[in-house]
């Protein structure tokens, strides 16, 4: 299970560039560390993050173990019309998690 805090402004003027932020709760185990019994701790990371704005993929990230635990990403989005901003992230077991925020463009 993986939860996240997503921040998208609730309202925006048309063509305003707004900031989208996401903080995912995840250990981002690199796969390079050894546990107390000397064995390798298996890799367990969030490996991708996508942003869908009104059904269209606008941003995608390939994530490597060099991203810190509890991954944080911030990027910008041009608010062209009211609708949904959905962030989808996936872990090593190919489980997908999503969070949707509504934006009202006036």
């Amino acid at each position: 299970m993986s939860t996240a805090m997503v921040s998208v402004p609730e309202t925006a003027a048309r063509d305003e560039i707004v900031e989208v932020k996401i903080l995912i709760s995840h250990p981002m185990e690199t796969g390079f560390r050894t546990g107390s019994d000397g064995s390798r701790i298996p890799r367990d990371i969030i490996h991708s993050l996508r942003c869908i704005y009104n059904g269209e993929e606008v941003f995608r990230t390939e994530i490597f173990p060099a991203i810190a635990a509890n991954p944080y990403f911030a990027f910008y989005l041009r608010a062209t019309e009211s609708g949904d901003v959905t962030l989808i992230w996936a872990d090593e077991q190919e489980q997908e998690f999503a969070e949707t925020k509504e934006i009202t463009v006036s």
Partner: protein
Amino acid sequence: MSARTVTTRRRLLALGIGAPLGLIVARTAGATPESMQAAIDTFTEGTVPEEARVALDIPLLVENGNTVPMMVSVESPMTADDHVTTIAVFNEANPLPEVAVFHLTPSLGRAEVQTRIRLSDTQTITAIARTSDGRLWSANTSVIVTAPACAEE
């Protein structure tokens, strides 16, 4: 009771011997300037990026390599005709040379991404951006890390 203390001591001894070995393994298996260059070459397909238009903001000196704020921005109008399609970030000392690859579209309006990264050691970070005309742009930043990531947990 005494058996328990023995196992603890053994475990401690094993840790004492194992830890430096682990460090050596990590060092040899880690990314090097050469493996970073190889990863960059795979991304650039041999084209040499121009050192312009990209800004890579990382603190010059960080105490804790476990979570280092990083901001990459590219000067671009982000229109359908002229926009940044990809930003890739590489490092030369972590176990893997790649940090992250961002795929951008004109819908973003601004080519800027922020995240937090891990740094295993003092090193140079490289960001390379590809624009829609196929050209490549880059920026390098050197970071001094006083307490690296992954050293202890």
